[in-house]
């Protein structure tokens, strides 16, 4: 067993520095790497490029990094629900690249899988395709989208072991699996770090080969963005 376990978030983030490009898992606030984000806030890194489907809310998730003006550029598919984001974007302080959600996922997966680029129909004929190579296959037009290049991927899983194997829960899976192994170093934080051998190999979502460092997250707030319920 190759041991990927590190003692804490501090060790897990060794090597991060200003002006790096990070991938961060999560959809809205669901399945975000809360511990890694909080540590990035503490480290006060600047000039970051963040690849993440969303940008958090004003006082949680990536919103915390935005608030301290640590992010230079966001690559996302949807960035509502964040006033500070809007202010920085409209004032030009923050560079924002909006791309289709499936393209974001596939550019991660391409990086993970060794594909330099992929063709997707999403965005053809729109401003998203401007300046990009297009090509016809079987009478339909596609846009060439390149694999992301990132320094670190920060992902969050439900359970993991020291071998780096990961299991996700519910829709907290989202972008996390495609980001594993898609950056130079993948840091996984988990709610439960279980003994090696206790996870059923049949049930592993991400094999440890895609993960360089794994640590037990300290606390998880797991904030809910839209609490919707029905009456009994």
């Amino acid at each position, binding site marked *: 067993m190759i041991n990927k376990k590190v003692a804490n978030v501090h060790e897990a983030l060794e090597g991060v520095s200003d002006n790096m490009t990070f991938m961060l898992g999560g*959809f*809205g*606030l*669901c*399945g975000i790497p809360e511990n890694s984000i909080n540590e990035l806030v503490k480290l006060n890194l600047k000039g970051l490029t963040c690849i993440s*489907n969303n940008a958090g809310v004003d006082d949680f998730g990536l919103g915390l990094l935005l608030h301290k003006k640590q992010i230079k550029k966001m690559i*996302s*598919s*949807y*960035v*509502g629900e964040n006033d500070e984001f*809007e202010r920085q*974007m*409209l004032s030009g302080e923050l560079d924002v690249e*909006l*791309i*289709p*959600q*499936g*393209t*974001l*996922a*596939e550019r*991660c*997966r391409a990086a993970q899988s060794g594909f330099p680029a992929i063709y*997707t*129909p*999403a*965005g*053809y*004929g*729109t*401003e*998203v395709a401007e300046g990009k190579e297009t090509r016809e296959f079987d009478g339909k037009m596609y846009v060439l989208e390149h694999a992301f290049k990132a320094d670190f991927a920060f992902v969050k899983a*439900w359970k993991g072991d020291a071998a780096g194997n990961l299991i*996700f*829960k*519910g*829709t*907290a*899976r*989202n*972008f*996390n*699996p*495609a980001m594993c192994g898609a950056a130079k170093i993948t840091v996984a934080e988990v709610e439960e770090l279980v003994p090696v051998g206790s996870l059923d190999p049949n049930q592993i*979502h991400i094999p440890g080969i895609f993960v360089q460092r794994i640590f037990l997250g300290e606390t998880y707030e*797991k*904030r*809910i*963005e*839209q*609490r*919707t*319920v*029905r*009456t*009994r």
Partner: protein
Amino acid sequence: MALDKTGIAKRIAKEVKDGYYVNLGIGIPTLVANYVRDDIEVEFQSENGVLGMGPFPFEGEEDADIINAGKQTITTLPGASFFDSAMSFSMIRGKHVDLTILGAMEVSENGDIANWKIPGKMVKGMGGAMDLVASAENIIVAMMHTNKAGESKLLKKCSLPLTGVGCVKKIVTNLAVLEVTDKGFKLLERAPGISVEDIKKATEGTLIVEGDIPEMSL
């Protein structure tokens, strides 16, 4: 009388067939789930990674790890599955989802759709809309026929930045059901009490009216 949002959802629900996998957008489309016949089997897909979405949870049973693409807490039904975003869009781009229902700001008579950006205003992003419209074979747009200023949203050409080109097949508005054809918007049904003349006035794009246009039944 023109339909309200619930009426539009009820009419669209009739387009949902037995055995369909359906992706619902935010807004009016979300309401469609409430009006699908209960004697057919349909599974709702949410692009954040769930198939077999159920109703909202009872109070106290919300799970932060189980949400829909609108970030609302949801439940799952027996037979449901979770998956990652890449696989979710494989379902969508790979044409495994049978029906996509989404809202729009503008639709043009050749089936272009604009629903993600108003230049000069805050731009929140396209989310999964571009992937959905670029791939789905069967797209129904749910929207009001005119905007708040009374201007038609069914145009010769979209004025807003596009989400996709030549992709919309059917439109259900508060006034009418229309099909996008090579020659323009073909009027299929009228909302109860709405005349063909009312619909003509509210449609900027080419409107094709052939024979008697029936009132829609809800």
